[in-house]
């Protein structure tokens, strides 16, 4: 079965610090990859997605992620975080378009002034 590992449970950063959240998945075939964000009290929102093509994908709010197939990784990055980035971040993978997403356990990001 597919699985997604997010190694950081809770990350605390100061404003303007750079962010990288790790995500590794286990599946040998072609996958679609996603990062979702859940702000406090709100529903899940899509940050970015990778289906094919350029392995460096850019999403909303200055986030980007790089797909490294050889490492089965899809790490999320942002050069300079803001207080408003405080949220829970979920990595997800789906091997085909008609199957449900498999989510990682999530990483809580706390940005302090």
């Amino acid at each position, binding site marked *: 079965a597919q699985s997604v590992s997010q190694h950081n449970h809770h990350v605390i950063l100061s404003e303007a610090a750079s962010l990288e959240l790790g995500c590794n998945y286990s599946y040998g075939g072609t996958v679609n990859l996603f990062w*979702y964000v859940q702000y406090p009290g709100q*529903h899940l929102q*899509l940050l970015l997605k990778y*289906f094919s093509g350029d392995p460096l994908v850019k999403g909303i709010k200055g986030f980007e992620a790089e797909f490294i197939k050889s490492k089965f990784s899809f790490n999320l990055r942002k050069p300079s975080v803001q207080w408003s980035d405080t949220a829970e971040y*979920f990595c997800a993978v*789906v091997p085909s378009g*008609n199957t*449900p*997403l498999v989510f990682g*356990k999530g990483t809580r990001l706390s940005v302090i002034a």
Partner: protein
Amino acid sequence: SAVISQKPSRDICQRGTSLTIQCQVDSQVTMMFWYRQQPGQSLTLIATANQGSEATYESGFVIDKFPISRPNLTFSTLTVSNMSPEDSSIYLCSATGQGAEAFFGQGTRLTVV
């Protein structure tokens, strides 16, 4: 994209009772899913809601406890039956279209007392 309306947004229920959660999508989607998100946890797939037929349940979830309906392409319900405090959680409806991206409702926060 798809907009998902889920209701109720929250409820407090007595143990032993049942609650039905409704999910309405504003456009035709191929797949609909129900997830559970327990406090501080990631999303766990309950089942895939199949149009006009019985839902497909994940390990650990059964139809008697979580009956699901999907009478058409844009509407589904999840019932949490004979509730106990362990059922307290956020229940999320999700839908995917042709592009494999999953959209989420705002969730139903259920508290069982």
